């Protein structure tokens, strides 16, 4: 298989003792539109509410709309071959760059540009939100107490990454 070329290959690495920001490679992303009862026998149980993510058979399943889902799996995944008869699929693997931000100040960094409540009690691990980072569409997924994965459009990846590293400057130690 050909290696995917990172959209952030030329980005300046970010280092800090309290915060890590970097790219998380190696995933596939499939957008699926259809009825949960038809899709779930193949994917596993789907979240009942928009904003919830569950893990099933090594994949992360997100409900992004009333009848729309994101399936995030390993870099090579055969699930898209099993769904076309029952749902509308849109492969998005190459359209998104996944940026990870982790550390104690992560919530404060994100709150500078994303119009959501990032308090621990409001944005919990296992939930996500499709929103905008300075009006750039992103999906923000909370995967740990202070760890977030941000799915940004590939062509905006450098901009989002630079925005994050700039926003993190005041917290750098």
């Amino acid at each position, binding site marked *: 298989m050909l290696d995917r070329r990172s959209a952030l290959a030329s980005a300046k690495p970010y280092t800090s003792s309290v915060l890590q920001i970097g790219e998380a490679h190696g995933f596939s992303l499939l957008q699926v539109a259809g009825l949960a009862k038809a899709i779930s026998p193949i994917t596993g149980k789907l979240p009942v509410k*928009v*904003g919830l993510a569950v893990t099933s058979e090594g994949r992360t399943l997100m409900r*992004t*709309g*009333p009848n*729309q889902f994101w399936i995030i799996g390993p870099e090579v995944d055969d699930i898209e071959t099993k769904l076309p008869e029952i749902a509308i699929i849109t492969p998005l693997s190459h359209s998104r760059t996944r940026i990870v931000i982790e550390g104690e100040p992560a919530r404060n960094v994100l709150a500078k540009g994303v*119009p*959501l409540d990032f308090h621990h009690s409001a944005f919990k691990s296992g939930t996500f*939100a*499709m*929103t*905008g980072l300075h*009006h750039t*569409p992103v999906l923000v997924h909370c995967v740990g107490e202070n760890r977030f994965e941000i799915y940004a459009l590939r062509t905006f990846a450098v901009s989002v990454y630079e925005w994050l590293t700039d926003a993190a400057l005041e917290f750098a130690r």
Partner: protein
Amino acid sequence: MRIPCPHCGQRDVGEFRYGGDASKARPAHGTGDMKAWHDYYFLFDNPKGPHDEYWQHVLGCRQWFKLTRNTATNEIGEQP
């Protein structure tokens, strides 16, 4: 100003796109009466108070929905 998306919950107005007056009825498909189309496209009430509107959660779930917004206070009412 926050808008309650029926799928995502309360979100900042910046995530949404205004989609027009939801109180108007589009002329039936095939209507040849130009005045009906003119009035539909160009004539609007400008109420002070509750107003039925279309909105799209364009940065979120991308779904369209209706809501009632008070044009004087931006208070959001029930979804019509």
